[in-house]
């Protein structure tokens, strides 16, 4: 498949916000829509030569399937949902939306549009509230969406054909929406085009986000928006449903639903609930209400009785915690420990390297308590290095090589001094000794005998 090139016609219009932080795109079209493909190559060869005339056609056929998202969506493909799942807040004047990583996701399949309009998304976000009521998500199989598995009076995807790799026993989640409700709240075909778009953010913005387990944070997203505002005071649910080939059933299509239909079965790819109440769980409110006292990691000092012990209070203010300590000699005491996260700036005064963690144990004779922080750090580093066998072997080999090289270099210099020869590291030692030291001595002998 050729790499996705960003031709103007493929991505639609784009517009950047003022500081270039985010760019909106009308759509990102996939180069190949999902489905089964058939490629036939024919080559006609002919010759007019009288003796060997022939006229043959050779044909080769290749079938392949482009499987995209169809009835289920991997959780990693979802970047975020708004309002956040199970959040409570003033959401009565916002439209819920979902953000995905595959930037072509809403345009990978078609809604079966009769006008031939290419860029109509096949995903819609339907919002229900308690008064509707909220449909129950039922787990089933693909057979429940095929005409054979539908109860009377219910319709589902018209002309649903299983693609390569799909079987009627594949699991699927679905909801049954009453026909009148569907006609009232589903987006029309023209609405759908306005309710999905794509966004691209800059690398600088990516650097400001928290890392996700060493996965690269993507910069390109697609967004699907709901068309219904939540009702205040209610529990509300949003469902991401597939509307593949459902253009004739959408409101405003001019085609009435088949007679006797009282419900429509839709496959659900994702869903979540939130509450619309005057509680303030917005982003800003969360942060403003944060506990900021004390501003640094410390345990607040709460003496068991009236007396305040000064050194305990000071230690807690410096970020220490006390732990039970069972020493190697069998004694049992209480010692201070502190991690590397300090409430204040500390000058660097520890001298490395150290021979063992015991050398880092601090003792305060006034209180007869140990401070084990640095010893714990040293031992933790040693254990982490040992746990990684590759690193431990690498470090050990490196040190041995360094020592060996240092001794060899010294030996070369030493021997050179003794023999009065300049020895270098490139050629082998004995060759240099031969040419530089032994041979002149031998030649002095042989010369003398001549």
């Amino acid at each position, binding site marked *: 498949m050729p790499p996705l090139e960003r031709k103007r016609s493929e991505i639609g*219009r784009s517009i950047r916000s003022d500081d270039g932080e985010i760019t909106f795109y009308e*759509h990102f079209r996939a180069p190949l829509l999902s489905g089964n493909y058939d490629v036939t190559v024919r080559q006609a060869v002919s010759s007019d030569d009288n003796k060997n005339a022939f006229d043959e056609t050779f044909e080769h056929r290749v079938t392949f399937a482009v499987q995209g998202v169809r009835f289920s969506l991997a959780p990693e493909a979802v970047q975020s949902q708004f309002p956040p799942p199970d959040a409570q807040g003033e959401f009565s004047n916002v439209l819920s939306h979902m953000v995905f990583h595959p930037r072509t996701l809403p345009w990978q399949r078609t809604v079966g549009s009769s006008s031939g309009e290419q860029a109509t998304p096949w995903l819609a976000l339907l919002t229900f509230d308690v008064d509707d009521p909220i449909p129950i998500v039922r787990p089933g199989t693909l057979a429940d969406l095929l005409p054979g598995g539908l109860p009377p009076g219910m319709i589902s995807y018209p002309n649903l054909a299983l693609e390569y790799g799909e079987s009627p026993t594949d699991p699927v989640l679905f909801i049954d929406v009453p026909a009148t409700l569907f006609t009232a709240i589903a987006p029309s075909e023209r609405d759908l085009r306005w309710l999905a778009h794509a966004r691209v953010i800059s690398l600088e913005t990516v650097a400001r986000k928290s890392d996700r387990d060493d996965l690269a944070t993507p910069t390109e997203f697609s967004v699907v928006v709901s*068309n219904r505002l939540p009702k205040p005071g209610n529990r509300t649910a949003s469902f991401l449903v597939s509307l593949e080939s459902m253009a004739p059933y959408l409101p405003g299509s001019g085609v009435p639903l088949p007679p006797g239909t009282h419900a429509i079965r839709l496959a659900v790819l994702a869903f979540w609930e939130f509450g619309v109440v005057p509680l303030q769980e917005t982003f800003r409110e*969360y942060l403003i209400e944060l506990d900021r006292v004390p501003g640094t990691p410390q*345990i607040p000092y709460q003496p068991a009785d009236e007396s305040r012990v000064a050194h305990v209070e000071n230690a807690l203010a410096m970020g220490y*915690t006390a732990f039970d300590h069972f020493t190697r000699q069998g004694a049992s005491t209480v010692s201070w420990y502190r991690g590397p996260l300090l*409430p204040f700036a500390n000058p660097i005064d520890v001298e490395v390297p150290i021979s063992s963690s015991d050398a880092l144990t601090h003792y305060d004779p006034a209180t007869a308590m140990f401070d084990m922080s640095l010893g714990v750090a040293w031992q933790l580093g040693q254990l982490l290095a040992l746990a990684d066998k590759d690193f431990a072997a*690498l470090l050990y080999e490196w040190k041995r090589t360094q020592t060996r090289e240092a001794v060899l270099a010294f*030996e070369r210099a030493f021997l050179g001094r003794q023999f009065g020869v300049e020895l270098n590291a490139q050629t082998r030692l004995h060759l240099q000794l031969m040419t530089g030291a032994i041979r002149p001595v031998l030649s002095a002998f042989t010369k003398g005998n001549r």
Partner: protein
Amino acid sequence: MKKRWSTSDEWIAGARAAVDAAALDESADASAEQRITDWLARLRNLHGVPFTTLIPDVRMLPQESIRVFRIDENWIDCLIDGAYSIGRSTTGNGDLAREAAMFGRIRIPLRNRAATARPRRIFGAEHARANAEGSQTRSGFLLRSGVVSGWPSMEVRAFDASGRELEPVRLDRPAQDVLFGVFNGELAKLSFSEPAETLHFGFEPSANDAFRKRLKWITPQPGHPAGSMMDAPAVAVPMRDSARRVIDANALAQAIHQSLVNTGGMAPGAQYSGAELALELVQGVQQVDFPIEGAPR
């Protein structure tokens, strides 16, 4: 001449001195040194260190709290030395002089490598941010709140006292609702903002349970960049079904387009699509700044 080969003592002393000095101009195996530096750089950023070692008591970081800290470089030096002690002999005088000399070779590259590991991964090895220097002091913050689980891709910026932005050396979530950030320098201001890619569509309520939307400039004019608010009257949001609060997306798009053309927000012939509608409908991003005061003791 009577010269005896009795320089063995001299040889032993000289060899020991050479080992202690570890004075090699070029390491025989530079790639091993690079891999060792990379591994220790990860440790220097506290990767792999159990979280209970960093915060030993849950009362230090209660629910819905934020704490700022300075990194104790003594603790970090001991951690690195513990890892580096593999292969160290401690009998007698031991190898301490040799170890100090060999570690001295990688001390500064280790600090720089630790500070640039993250920007190197995001921006690539050639970018300016991936080749900066590591600072002597590092500071950071811990945020434990529902806002971290609700807005997982929220954006964090840190600034020092002179207003310069600090590079995040580490920024990740040890738990669903805990955000841990370490920065290259001394923190004076932290800024949290909603993620840019999840800007949501919203409207203002107006009379009679209806909604309206104030417009933003599409075609930039002098003094009015694209995306800034216009002074024009707001557009009423057409509803397909008021009782069920279903908006008519197509009619809304056309109404906004018409109003933009009438008020000069965009040129009459300019292309109008879902991208322009998205720019009009997004609500602003919320941002909260925390200035950090108090001189360190």
